[in-house]
């Protein structure tokens, strides 16, 4: 323990220089901005800024890029709450209750709780990263492909649990998301799947285009249907700080979200997006009145926002301790380390302790910067609500177009964005929820990879999922949850509907 404190103190000594603090601040600011802007996510921002870090010292480079990542988690909630458009994918569920709170004139409380919950969970994750990273990462690496596969199946089943409407329609959305994710070249066999001779589809469909289309464009189309879309929701500045009642309702979801997010972020494939979805599902499940979720429950903001920030912190553990990036963003961070001549992995803490502990220390500093940046600036973000929809929506359309293009610099992605936008607008009218499609789209490539690896390593085919205790347990839990969903759906469907 003393050794850890001493090493961490060394890390702080390494980063408490004006230059490094400046880069952490800039990263936090850009991250929040990226999160706020619909259409550009942390992945696109990190890709764009990666070349600029080559000239920086390794600690400053990773500190800045990390700050962009968790800054975008903070900022992503702002647009979700204010205009019901997720700034990035992990903030999708924040729209449900966050925007409902904004409509009730409680945007300030939602924004404040999102920032404070993010800070608490982010710090929680970093503290555990600091003291327990060897043991936790040791557990994560014991999981093999069957366990990963079972874990992701559980994630998808939890998505069906989260669905407020028809579970069958949710199943269709998961199937669609999976089908779209398989488009393009199969990296194992090299075969082209569902490309129909189109060159643009050989690389698959871009996630940014799908998310922006489904959640940004479709939302705007739904809104312009109204004959006289007025001013956006107005919120009074005195409502900015969460009330005592808000805190009473939120502390437990924040703690649960922190723990859940940490566990999910630790496992490769699990990241902030999965963490926020699972946290929302958990909060809804344990609530006395689940039907009130989606109508402005602060627990639906506090839990997921805590979970996604905690997942960001824990996602650094496999990267820094094992050299295994758990998701695309940490893969980019790994690339930045390698560009700077540093090889991430078990030897990093031995060979370059100042870098390892410097990065850990920068996470603490970055979270404090973000709290300072976000809480006082919440009032400024609330000012966005005063912009008329007639100005806001066209601007968001252009932002979405530029953001979608910037991810891959491909005009074809703009057509994908528009196509998914129209599809999302149409499906919402018929009671189809869009979030399961996106989650399946994100998880499907990882799920397919682990499924294939599991099948290859098993002489008995799918029996491997029953032969390994952890995988079998996760599969059993998934099966039980599915039975529960089917039973509940059957009991809830009224006879003599509107046919």
């Amino acid at each position, binding site marked *: 323990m003393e050794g850890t404190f001493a090493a961490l103190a060394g890390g702080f000594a390494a980063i408490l220089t004006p230059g490094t603090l400046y880069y952490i601040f800039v990263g936090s600011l850009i991250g929040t901005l990226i999160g706020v802007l619909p259409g550009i996510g942390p992945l696109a921002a990190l890709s764009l800024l990666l070349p600029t870090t080559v000239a920086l010292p390794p600690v400053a480079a990773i500190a800045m890029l990390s700050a962009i990542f968790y800054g975008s988690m903070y900022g992503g909630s702002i647009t979700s709450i204010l205009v019901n458009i997720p700034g990035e994918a992990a903030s999708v569920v924040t729209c449900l209750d966050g925007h409902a709170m904004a409509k009730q004139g409680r945007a300030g409380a939602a924004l404040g709780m999102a920032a404070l919950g993010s800070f608490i969970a982010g710090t929680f994750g970093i503290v555990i990263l600091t003291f327990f990273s060897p043991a936790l990462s040791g557990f994560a690496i014991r999981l093999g492909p069957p366990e990963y596969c079972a874990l992701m199946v559980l994630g998808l089943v939890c998505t069906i649990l989260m669905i407020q409407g028809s579970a069958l329609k949710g199943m*269709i959305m998961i199937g669609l998301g*999976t089908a779209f994710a398989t488009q393009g070249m199969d990296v194992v066999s090299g075969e082209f799947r569902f490309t129909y001779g189109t060159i643009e589809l050989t690389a698959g469909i871009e996630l940014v285009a799908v998310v922006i289309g489904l959640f940004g*464009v479709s939302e*705007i189309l739904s809104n312009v249907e109204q004959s006289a879309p007025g001013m956006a929701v107005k919120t009074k500045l005195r409502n900015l700080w969460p009330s005592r009642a808000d805190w009473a309702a939120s502390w437990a979801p924040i703690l649960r979200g922190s723990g859940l997010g940490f566990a999910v972020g630790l496992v490769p494939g699990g990241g902030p997006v999965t963490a926020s979805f699972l946290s929302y599902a958990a909060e809804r499940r344990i609530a006395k009145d689940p039907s009130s979720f989606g109508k402005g429950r602060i627990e639906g903001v506090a839990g997921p926002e805590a979970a996604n920030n905690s997942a960001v912190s824990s996602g650094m553990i496999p990267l820094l301790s094992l050299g295994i990036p758990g998701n695309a963003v940490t893969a980019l961070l790994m690339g930045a380390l390698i560009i700077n001549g540093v090889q991430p992995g078990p030897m990093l803490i031995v060979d370059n302790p100042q870098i390892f502990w410097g990065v850990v220390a920068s996470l603490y500093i970055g979270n404090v910067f973000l709290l300072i940046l976000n809480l006082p600036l919440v009032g400024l973000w609330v000012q966005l609500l005063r912009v008329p929809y007639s100005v806001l929506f066209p*601007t968001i359309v252009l932002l979405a177009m530029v953001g979608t*293009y910037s991810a891959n610099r491909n005009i074809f992605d703009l057509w994908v964005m528009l196509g998914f936008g129209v599809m999302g607008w149409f499906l919402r009218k018929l*009671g189809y929820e869009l979030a399961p499609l996106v989650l399946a789209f994100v998880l499907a490539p990882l799920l397919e990879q682990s499924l294939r690896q599991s099948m290859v390593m098993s002489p008995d085919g799918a029996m491997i999922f029953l032969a390994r205790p952890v995988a079998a347990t996760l599969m059993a839990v998934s099966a039980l949850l599915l039975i529960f969903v089917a039973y509940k759906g059957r009991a809830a469907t009224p006879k003599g*509907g*509107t046919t």
Partner: protein
Amino acid sequence: MPALNIGLSLFWMLFGLALVHQSVALGLGGPGGPGSGLFPLLAAILITAGGAGVLLRDLLRGVPEGELTPRFWMARGAALRVGLMVVVTTGMILVVPKLGFALSGAIGLPLLFRTIAPRSSWWFALLVGIVAAGIVHLLFAVMLGTPLPRGPLGF
């Protein structure tokens, strides 16, 4: 709306079955392990089964209350507004490679603005379009350094 819901369920079933056919054609696997079609097949089964389930439910028990929006178009003139939004956005995407984002935005945004606020003046719409397109260009092209398609004016 219930008829549309049934029609869409039928579409999912047909789409799922077509996907099953294509997945099988891709190959489900062999001694070397799973083939390229195995995972898409699982997706296709989910879509087909889900579509069949919704169809059966709707025919036997009816659509649960509140699942569908009461009407397809929520207000008078909604079809025109949604149609214009899609058409203008399509036009913007078409001209972006030639005009760049800034100029496409400066032309397209006033049209989108007028679609939503038809009583506003064209001058104000034009001003909103130019200012908004300028801000977006400054953010992405100047501050973030994103290489965006350039138009005839050099930006």
